[in-house]
């Protein structure tokens, strides 16, 4: 068997309630890609029999979660893995249920693609619109609308086309359908395995890719060209006490490139101080690199001794940004404890933290109707546009332009809990 090292990685999320067949879809993907091994399969076969089912119930693979829900335990998101030999996949599996907004936002934050399930018998529902809005809000540009349970509408092409048309009309309405975004429709039956990995027998009229073929060819993260270079400093390496005299002057800025790319010799600016220098070397461990790209964790050496510490950001001098002490953002409230405008929260943005005061709540979004409503405070699952005053300057980009430098979390200082997720608008 070939196990190449040069395969890429795709992170995607699945949304839809259990009734839409999401558990079965995930189970089918794992089963048909031979990710489920014999001992696991035997276990679910046994459980299926115990429950009096004829065939193996693939939704039992996520049964751990269902059992927990029965006990009233809320698990935000579970992560599952499979690989095809050409690509590795990480599924962020957001259980539907009441806690949908924060689960959806959490799962979407690390995904490059969303699979939105629609029950072919029911068509586009409020829930479909909510999922689409949230995926769009969190910046997912590739959406696969999986029209499931086609077996229950006799694999009828007209039903499929009607749902596609309904969905596209809605997508136009919320600005989801536009340049740089891709919406694809796949008819399927997760139960029978039609159009998931195998084509099946019922959908001969459909000429497009199966779900797996689609996933195999979907663009991975950060395929945009010419993004500005953003390098938040995570850790400064100064082994000056080392026995090796050559290391006494070593000063490495360690971090991950959040966007863009960098080459040795390029001129950079350290923010917020504004000092400039040139890249002397780029390393991963001991290995020297001539250049580095988005999502690589590297060590950056500069030609000049500049005072730089964790929380600073290194950018290309030609692509610099102004540090700001005021931001406006779409915030999803994650905590059971409501947002209090009287309190101060901690904003964690890239590797930098700042105290933040809540300014004005401009409006709250009704995620069912997408209406903007007035609001005084926020409770769990609310989404609102809020402005903040910051104690420390942050180096931000709008979220729509940069998911890494446009995002932040809010932390409650008393409990240290993560209570809010923010996407910067300006």
């Amino acid at each position: 068997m070939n196990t190449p090292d040069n395969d890429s990685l795709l992170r995607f999320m699945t949304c839809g309630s259990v009734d839409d067949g999401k558990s079965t879809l995930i189970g089918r993907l794992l089963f048909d890609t031979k990710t489920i091994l014999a001992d696991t399969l035997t276990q679910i076969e046994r459980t299926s029999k115990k429950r009096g089912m004829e065939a193996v119930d693939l939704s039992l693979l996520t049964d751990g979660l269902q059992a927990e829900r029965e006990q009233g335990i809320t698990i935000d998101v579970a992560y599952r893995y499979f690989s095809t030999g050409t690509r590795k996949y990480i599924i962020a599996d957001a259980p539907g249920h009441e806690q949908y907004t924060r689960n959806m936002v959490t799962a979407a934050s690390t995904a490059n693609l969303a699979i939105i399930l629609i029950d072919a018998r029911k068509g586009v529902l409020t829930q479909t619109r909510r999922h689409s809005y949230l995926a769009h809000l969190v910046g997912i540009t590739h959406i696969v609308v999986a029209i499931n349970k086609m077996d229950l509408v006799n694999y009828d092409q007209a039903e499929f086309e009607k749902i596609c048309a309904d969905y596209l009309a809605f997508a136009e309405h919320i600005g989801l359908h536009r340049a740089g975004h891709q919406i694809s429709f796949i008819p399927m039956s997760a139960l029978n395995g039609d159009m998931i990995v195998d084509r099946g027998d019922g959908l001969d009229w459909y000429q497009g890719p199966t779900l797996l073929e689609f996933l195999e060819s979907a663009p991975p993260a950060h395929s945009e060209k010419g993004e500005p270079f953003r390098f938040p400093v995570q850790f400064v390496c100064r082994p000056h006490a080392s026995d090796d005299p050559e290391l006494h002057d070593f000063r490495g800025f360690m971090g991950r490139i959040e966007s863009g790319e960098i080459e040795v010799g390029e001129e950079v600016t350290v923010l917020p101080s504004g000092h400039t220098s040139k890249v002397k070397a780029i390393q991963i461990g001991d290995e020297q690199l001539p250049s580095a790209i988005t999502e690589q964790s590297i060590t950056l050496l500069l030609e000049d001794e500049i005072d730089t510490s964790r929380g600073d950001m290194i950018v290309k001098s030609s692509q610099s940004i102004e540090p700001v002490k005021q931001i406006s953002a779409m915030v999803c409230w994650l905590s059971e404890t409501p947002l209090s405008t009287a309190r101060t929260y901690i904003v964690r943005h890239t590797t930098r933290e700042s105290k933040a005061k809540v300014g004005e709540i401009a409006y709250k979004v009704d995620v069912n109707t997408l209406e903007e409503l007035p609001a005084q405070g926020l409770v769990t699952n609310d989404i609102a546009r809020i402005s903040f005053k910051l104690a420390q300057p942050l180096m931000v980009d709008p979220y729509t332009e940069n998911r890494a430098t446009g995002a932040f979390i809010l932390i409650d200082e008393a409990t240290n809990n993560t209570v809010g997720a923010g996407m910067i608008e300006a």
Partner: protein
Amino acid sequence: MTSLTKETLSHLDWLESEAIYILREVAGQCSNPVLLFSGGKDSLCILRLAEKAFRPGRFPFPLMHIDTGHNYKEVIDFRDQRAAELGERLIVRSVEDSMKRGSVVLKSADEPRNKHQSVTLLEAIEEFGFDCCIGGARRDEEKARAKERIMSFRDEFGQWDPKNQRPELWNLYNARSHKGENIRAFPISNWTEMDVWQYIEREKLQLPSIYFAHQRDIVMRGGAIMPVNVPLASGEVINQPKPGEEIINMQVRFRTVGDITCTAPVISDSDNVAKIVLETATTTITERGATRLDDQTSDASMEQRKKEGYF
């Protein structure tokens, strides 16, 4: 010049980069972290990742092993050798010391000690005042792990509360804790058993010899392969065969390394990493399905092997 066609990272490069990022977040956010290091394959990967994250500097944390006293000598020797090669500080705390103190009481002398490690770990956390323990757990190992956070909060009793986990969004990890509380950080959460072996192959990592096929005396017990008459570093010999059990000398290797009394090997002739990668790609049994007697043991494992013609 900015290249026109953007390159993307291979999945191993991406996983490596994410793990390095997580290790650096621990170092940046926590004041007194520690890296749990057993000498096993997952923690050996993390050591390599720590080298890539922090060299030429020293690791901003010591290494620590919670020794059950029932570990394979080969693994303990390898643990010490690797720590010495890296020039990093290794702390060892043992379940046997907890037994002497009376904080661990065994029901029977031959009881598996894996679960008692947590007592010794909490004692060590308190002794050194660690605010974060870095570990090699992976989400693909079992169902409960699929929901584990990368920075996972533990209260002052070391407890994980699945109902009250911090949501994790983007790569903005929250490793804050109050005194007495603790974060468990899992840099290789998103790795699978296959990723670990591919990484070991790519990085040419050295491993304890028990991961590779070797001849060993075993008995068949309860559908599992049980190593017998195993010498410990102390000279003591454990896992005596029970009366009536037939000792077989068989070619085996370990997929996972833990307490001798509850870690079973698998039948294998994979004596190098390339062969193990191939075997991992074609196996029909999960990593823990046939090998961890303290996990839920699968009735199917031996049946499946028999179907494949082993006996």
